């Protein structure tokens, strides 16, 4: 069965079982690397992507529910030579160790900053609680999100899709 998905502003015809979780379509069919398999249970957030404006666990989201909706992955934010404000803030704060959780962290944080341009520390911590980091990089991740929020006030939100502000 063919399903049309809009991912990072591009339309893709996907030939897969509609029950297939988005994560496997991103990784296997579209060869996008950012979203990671972590638990397959919605407990760790390594697979987090945005659907419309909401962060979702792509490991649990069947592609059948994505018709007509806009999927954004880390690859849609920016590239190493031209990172988005949030990606740039993660680089400036050196907010990674192994980095496996980071794509999910950035996408979840992106959702927050698109809705709340000036989140408090408590709001950031609360919003990020669904995502796990095992290296213990969280203090840097918090700093990076805070920095990005400040940077984004003087620039656009930094998504390639012109995200709502």
């Amino acid at each position: 069965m063919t399903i049309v998905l809009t991912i990072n502003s591009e339309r893709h015809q996907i030939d897969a079982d509609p029950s297939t979780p988005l994560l496997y379509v991103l990784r296997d069919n579209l060869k996008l690397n950012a979203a990671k398999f972590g638990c397959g249970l919605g407990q760790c957030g390594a697979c987090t992507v945005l659907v419309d404006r909401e962060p979702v666990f792509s490991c649990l989201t069947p592609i059948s529910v994505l018709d007509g909706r806009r999927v954004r992955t880390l690859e849609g934010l920016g590239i190493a030579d031209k990172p988005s404000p949030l990606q740039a803030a993660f680089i400036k704060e050196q907010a990674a160790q192994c980095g496996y959780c980071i794509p999910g962290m950035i996408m979840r944080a992106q959702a927050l900053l698109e809705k709340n341009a000036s989140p408090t520390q408590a709001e950031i911590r609360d919003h990020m609680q669904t995502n796990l980091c095992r290296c213990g990089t969280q203090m840097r991740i918090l700093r990076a999100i805070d920095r990005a929020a400040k940077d984004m006030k003087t620039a656009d939100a930094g998504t390639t899709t012109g995200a709502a502000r």
Partner: protein
Amino acid sequence: MTKPFIPPLSRRALLAGGGAVIVSFALMRHGLAQEAPAGPKLPGDLSKTPMLDAWIGIDAQGKITVFTGKAELGQGVKTAFIQCAAEELAVQPSAINLITADTGRTPDEGYTAGSHSMQDSGTAIRNAAAQVRDIMLSLAAAKLSIDAGTLDARDGKVSAKDGRSLGYGELASGQALHVAAQPTSRLTPPDKLKVIGSNLPRVDIPGKVTGAPMYVQDMRPDGMLHARVLRPANYGARLASLSADAARGMPGVVNIVQDGSFVAVVARGEFEAINALNVLSQNAQWSDGPQLPEQAKIYSTLTALPSQDKTILDKGDPAQPGVKRLKATYLRPYQSHGSIGPSCALAIWQDDMMTVWTHSQGVYPLRNAIAKMLSLPSDKVRCIHAEGSGCYGHNAADDVAGDAALIARAMPGTPIRVQWMREDEHGWEPFGPAMQTQVEASIDGQGKLLAWQYDVWSNTHSMRPGGPGNLLAAQYLAQPFQPDPPMPIPQPEGGGDRNAIPLYAIPNARVVSRFIPQMPIRVSALRGLGAYHNIFTTESFMDEMADAAGADPVAFRLAHLEDERARAVVSRAADAFGWTKDKPAAGWGRGFAFARYKNLAAYCAIALELRADRTTGNIELGRVVAAVDSGQAVNPDGIRNQIEGAIVQSSSWTILEEVTFDRTSITSRDWSSYPILRFPSLPQSVEVHIVNRPNAPFLGTGEAAQGPMSAAIGNAFARATGTRIRQLPLSPQRVRATLAT
């Protein structure tokens, strides 16, 4: 993949045109043993691999390649190695191409473990680079007929004052670098350092924050198939019956590979492999495995097992009663590495050669284990490190590499990618062992420690391959391999008894290491090994003794520390925290702890404050301040990142983590049954101060904070609540129960 699928084995192609190295690395290594010079020990791992061109190659165009046998595990070593090389070669860091652990190309540096990378490989690379730079200078001096002392090496060329210059590529032709290293090098003096000591941004972070293919999980060579391995619920269970037909007929399924009780499904798509695994699982019957011990009695069960006892410190009479004598027992449960990404590997069996991409910490030992498992000569197996999710010790990385090799062997020419499922990673990884410690000490009339008696019970802390039987899959084959007999890791580094010897000056002291060979639960190396619990014990008990002496905990430690660097770190952490200045707010308690990791690596002291909620049992971490001495700091921000990470990870271990099991199997199989720290429970702030020691040897840092953080939490908890908990973790449940009584 855009890169050639299998990197060339010979370094000739890598250094095309240079001719600096004209034999394959495997051949060259063969000759090294004979060429190793007698005499003083060479710096770092140059002592094991002395030829300079095993570490540094320069091609005809001057392109520099540096080889390390250590692996990037997320700890940032790639960047630090590049800094060491760039500094001494006098080139920009961007001019260095670094190749990490690969049995086809790099030196054998054993495991990337024990906080050894900077000491062993960083030291080797820095010294090799300094010696290569001097070779460039002397070759240029000969060619230009000029005194080498008047020449300047910079940015890949050697220049004379008269304007003439020669590039490294021209100078390094022939066998110029195929020489053994010298015991001493002309290292850049501390006041001239430009790259070492700078916060060079990590080379891997831009790719990691933009979704570049950075991990073994991201490799997808043409024709690659996905595999999943069927595992029983219990240790030691054997496949009694299997009906594979239903799985075989499922969409995308290409093959079912079986060898005894090892069964894997191979499919075109990853999700198809997972679906088929589920069906396979429903159609498999397994025999029972051995009964597991009762978790509630795990410590008495372990300590009742036969142990091999060794006295590792014995001076004076530790039974001296003094004016006060205290005794306590401390417990630490089995704990999980808990990698966020389950372990993964990619293997291909092609042209009689098995190539495995792996995030193992030891590509050479893994290669040998896989070769034995497959009855291949070791030169027919190549293991290439590719990054995975952080491992923090011996997780399932080696096991999954063994899985991939077995499946690939059954399907010649097909790249096979295997990733474990979450429940397998949580259920089958070798855990950090449960431990028990007992400590008894006395003080004299002056409030000084008089005697110290310390006993530690532990399983081994390393079941790494090793033999093939240390690979999980090998234990399930029709002709199974048995795990190696467990061995203690000897002092001075130690395993279960790592950091069991206190660094404090105590006139009468005995430390007994009680090694328990029998392992009811699968265990191996978890970050810090026994140091985590021995430091938790020692540093908690130091506070108990300080209380007995009526002394301030920091002053009490300083009164017993003779090592100036230890004293400096303790004072720095205390001062930066404001230990003696202001009092904690009502309900809050402060804790302090210190250790020198392994008594021979980095020094680390931590001060923190916390409070506990009696109703929920939750611990709220406030400010955390750490000081660390890692010797000459190569990348201060890298050190900070490691210490911050260790503080957060150790908080999680200390407050939350405990592997659970019933009489048949491990029951903590996901993040709900094995919770770890989430954002809202992080400390308010974490501050790391570096005591830099220019010119001093690099001291391993990666594990230095694990132990001190646990004891600082325990000590602060005791001061905040008036109650000490000596059993880890200080979980909400245990805190509630303890404070209710």
